[in-house]
């Protein structure tokens, strides 16, 4: 099972769920104030506590020292959301531990010493939280934690203090976007205390009608309450998005079908494609799947394409430095391969 390819509960609207827990060591300054040797020592301490000479963990969790990775490798991990772009761009002694199924990753020396994130396909914040909390518990029992009875888990930024938890989902909202209601929805969500961002986190644009929605508060509520509040809101959002899609399709079937089938036509035939164009067209394709217009494809095919077409992922698959033009050719080829093989009943993993 791979969280970024598989489908889960409500995955016609919610593509994936993620829960991140921030933890810090009590015996070091926070990462932005550590010296080089402190950064290295903290990383070693965390890694040792994580593996604890445990054979199961050693074979189930891959350890990566970011210093040993090329920029493409780091960016490819960021494109898969296994590390943050922030961690990829930071200095020496940043590390990451990734579970073999890629559902859990532990970033070391990001803004906080430890950032545990756990992902699930579809809307399944509870399962994501459970997995992250299990990892946190292990580290908490083996390391001196920065924690106070009053403020809970102490983090570098006061916006994470308390639970240190950010629960978020990647939502695909083409219906609300196409009928121009998205601006009001986003404003409404902000007013209700939820953060809405573009699909690659802070400061990024919402390409392909993909939005990252998360809790803003981390203190004064339990993890369960934070997740339940977010989930309750999301269930309403999902209903709204489904209704709008249905209305749009009932009102203008030809227009919507044309948009979707054109996207399909371009994706299955184009010889060059930028990442931005692909992400936009894949959004139409995903909408078409939800409306039952493309029986030959599944949402997992769209997810598989999305996970493979980022600039760094394309370059990495090519195994050599590529010009943007070469990447666009390679990207178009990857997309055709996945779409057309599925069409002939080919690869199913």
């Amino acid at each position, binding site marked *: 099972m791979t969280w970024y390819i598989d489908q889960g509960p409500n995955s016609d609207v919610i593509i994936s769920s993620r829960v991140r827990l921030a933890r810090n060591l009590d015996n070091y300054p926070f990462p932005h104030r550590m010296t080089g040797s402190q950064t290295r020592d903290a990383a070693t301490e965390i890694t040792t506590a994580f593996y604890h000479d445990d054979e*199961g*963990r050693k074979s189930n969790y891959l350890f990566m020292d970011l210093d040993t990775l090329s920029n493409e490798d780091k960016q490819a991990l960021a494109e898969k959301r296994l590390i943050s772009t922030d961690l990829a761009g930071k200095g020496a002694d940043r590390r990451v531990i990734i579970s073999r199924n890629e559902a859990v990753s532990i970033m070391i020396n990001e803004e906080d010493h430890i950032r545990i994130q756990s992902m699930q396909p579809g809307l399944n914040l509870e399962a994501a939280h459970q997995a992250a909390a299990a990892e946190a518990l*292990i580290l908490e029992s083996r390391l001196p934690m920065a924690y106070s009875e009053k403020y809970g888990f102490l983090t570098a930024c006061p916006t994470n203090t*308390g639970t240190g938890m950010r629960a978020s989902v990647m939502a695909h909202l083409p219906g609300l976007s196409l009928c121009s209601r998205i601006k009001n929805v986003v404003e409404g969500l*902000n007013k209700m205390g939820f953060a809405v961002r573009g699909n690659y986190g802070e400061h990024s644009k919402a390409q392909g009608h993909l939005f990252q929605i998360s809790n803003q*508060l981390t203190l004064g509520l339990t993890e369960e309450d934070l997740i339940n509040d977010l989930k309750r809101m999301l269930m309403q959002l999902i209903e709204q998005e489904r209704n709008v899609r249905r209305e749009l399709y009932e009102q203008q079937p030809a227009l919507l079908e044309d948009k979707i089938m054109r996207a399909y036509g371009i994706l299955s035939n184009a010889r060059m494609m930028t990442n931005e164009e692909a992400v936009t067209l894949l959004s139409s394709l995903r909408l078409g799947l939800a409306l039952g217009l493309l029986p030959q494809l599944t949402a997992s095919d769209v997810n598989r394409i999305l996970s493979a077409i980022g600039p760094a992922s394309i370059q990495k698959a090519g195994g050599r430095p590529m010009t943007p033009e070469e990447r666009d050719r390679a990207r178009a080829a990857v997309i055709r391969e996945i779409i057309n093989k599925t069409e002939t009943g080919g690869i199913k993993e």
Partner: protein
Amino acid sequence: MKCEKCTIREANIHLTRNRNGVVTEHHLCETCAQEQGVGFNLSKYFDGLGGVKALAGGSIFDTAGGIPAFGTVMEKNTTCPRCGQTFADFRRSGLFGCSVCYDAFADRLDPLMRRVQGSTQHIGHKAHQDAPWQEQNILKKQLTDLRQTLRQAVEAEEYETAARLRDEIRALEARVDAADSDAEKGGANI
């Protein structure tokens, strides 16, 4: 952070709204804030929802555009005894230097937390709890991991590894069982 309205300029006006205990934040640049009448007519921006306090600044504390901000009355610059970060550093970066900073800046934290988080008291999962049940959970997690590895080893036809893993799993299962029955006994005594 970019302005939530124009999404182009940096947001240096930060608004907090507390409604029935639910705190929300808005981040605007000066231009958009002025267009929205922040500081003069907040209700315009919030569609008359009311209850809005304007707090402005280059960071969450500073003053800008003549709007008084939180922190302006407190000029004293405390230094964290452990990491050496000053309160001014914190105002600039928005980041604490270490866990001791929370104590060092304690007298200024509650208003900040109330504004950013709407609360000053953690009620979620606690660290440092007495550990027997934690140890149990850890053993069980290790067991799950080992079983998964065993499945992989069998699939890969690595039978030597699989045999070794099976022994490890048996040993661990015995420990979990022992700890479980200990916990039950302990529970009966209370």
